[in-house]
């Protein structure tokens, strides 16, 4: 595994906290350059899109649930009802500067195809997902002997939409496999705080509650 761990763009991060934006949303928004064009895949009720638009970013969204879409449209956001697994193919190459997949990768049927599509449609992709290697989840399986459940992943095994869980380590391996360049990687702890940059990978994989990755296409194929 090779990657560069860059300094996080945390300017303005603390100042914007009181506005009740989610920590991972602020982190993701901080990775997006102003004036760029962004597609948020699985945009939920549009909180991240609203944050992006407040920063002068041209945001569009796709959301699976009809209720979510209609709430977004009722907020004046440009959101369409669609499925990351089936609808991304309809977008042309290089249509966006960034494509964001926030906490959705684990709910797709074909995570690898989805990831490839993200980097076809967008020059860069920002992907965040819950880390299944987080120590609390490991402990529940090891000691409790049952499928893990946390505040952020409250669903039971039989009704969870999350069908493709992975660890940070798994995700980094997938990126290597499909020739994706990691421009920036951040692991957040249970409270949404970034872990120490100097921490080793196994530490991130153990103590990161979620991973946030800024990806781009590698220069040339392997």
């Amino acid at each position: 595994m090779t990657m560069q761990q860059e300094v996080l763009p945390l300017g303005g991060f603390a100042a914007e906290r009181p506005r009740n934006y989610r920590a991972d949303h602020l982190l993701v928004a901080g990775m997006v350059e102003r004036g760029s064009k962004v597609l948020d895949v699985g945009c939920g009720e549009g909180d991240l899109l609203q944050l992006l638009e407040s920063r002068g970013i041209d945001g569009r969204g796709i959301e699976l649930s009809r209720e979510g879409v209609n709430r977004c449209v009722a907020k004046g956001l440009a959101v369409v009802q669609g499925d990351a697994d089936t609808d991304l193919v309809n977008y042309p190459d290089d249509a966006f500067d960034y494509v964001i997949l926030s906490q959705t990768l684990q709910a797709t049927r074909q995570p690898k195809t989805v990831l490839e599509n993200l980097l076809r449609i967008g020059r860069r992709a920002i992907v965040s997902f819950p880390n299944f290697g987080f120590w609390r989840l490991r402990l529940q399986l090891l000691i409790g002997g049952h499928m893990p459940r946390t505040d952020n992943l409250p669903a039971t095994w039989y009704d969870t939409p999350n069908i493709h869980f992975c660890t940070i380590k798994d995700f980094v391996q997938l990126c290597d496999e499909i020739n994706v360049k990691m421009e920036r990687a951040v692991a957040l702890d249970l409270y949404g705080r970034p872990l120490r940059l100097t921490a080793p990978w196994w530490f991130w994989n153990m103590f990161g509650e979620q991973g946030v990755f800024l990806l781009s296409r590698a220069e040339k194929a392997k």
Partner: protein
Amino acid sequence: MKVVTSKPSPTIAADERSHEADHPTSLVARFGAEQPLKLDCGIDLSPFQIAYQTYGELNANRSNAILVCHALTGDQHVANIHPVTGKPGWWETLVGPGRPLDPSRYFIICSNVIGGCMGSTGPASINPTTGKVWGLDFPIITIPDMVRAQAMLLDRLGIETLFAVVGGSMGGMQVLQWTAAYPTRVFSALAIACSTRHSAQNIAFHELGRQAVMADPDWHGGRYAEEGTHPHRGLAVARMAAHITYLSDAALHRKFGRRMQDRELPTFSFDADFQVESYLRYQGSSFVERFDSNSYLYLTRAMDYFDIAADHHGVLAAAFRGIQTRFCVVSFTSDWLFPTSESRALVHALNASSARVSFAEIETDRGHDAFLLDVPEFFDIARAFLQSGGTARGLTGAGD
């Protein structure tokens, strides 16, 4: 619900109807020989007139104009009492004080389409060269012809760009044609329960309606005005068949079920025993009081011919390439005339053109007609779409 059965009174209504065709109870823009309407069929229509209504005031920099496009059997009386039927405007749920299209905020224009029968030139109008009703001598018109005529009306009114074009069904087709033909004149487009092309099934239903009109002996090859008749039975049947396509199985079941009309037992006859029969007969008979049969033939034909992609070498996305218009597309779950799949195909094409598009599917069992009914979720979306557009366009008071 109580269903009213009434007999048509064709003679009285026919007088009012034919009067409205040339002398409408609304504003009229007349275009003389120097300004012909260039029709897709190759004919220059001249002279012609467009009947229209407006609501609200145009602001100083002429940036708050909204064009409402009516559906097949609609007209310019979108939010006022109809001069023939005496009923409220056909879209008062959407247009009016406190509604998403509020005349205190926007200058709202609605014109009768070319080919219509409520004051815009159509087959029921007098042909100036013969002094007789046009009838089937009227040239075939298309959705692009309707939009071309609307653009000429806007030129006459001194409106260069529209803040929004709004319409459902055939009105939605006009909205899409506006964006494809005049992309720089449309800031935002709200296209509801429509499609970029008429499907084979929809053409089939229209053909059924046309054949019903033509099979009526009172049609007289379209020359019924000269014969002093009107094929009201044929047109009523056409309307009954079409009306079924505007509803849904669930809506019909909820409204009528198998309930009887003013009786306990079947009469063992072909009377309207069932409420649903009585309702359809009423829909048919009330429609013929206000609508011209030939106009119905022409407008259904215009919808049949509509296919935006065909005008762009079969590539729908090419019709919207580079477009800056903000789109909102709305469909309804139980609409089987213009199903969600049609809207989704449009959205895919708009995405491929990198257009700014919102798309919402509203859950309702009321079928295609839902766009004309009281569906709060749809109104919320229409309101928010126009408000966010108003903010982007700098309309004062639009963001509150």
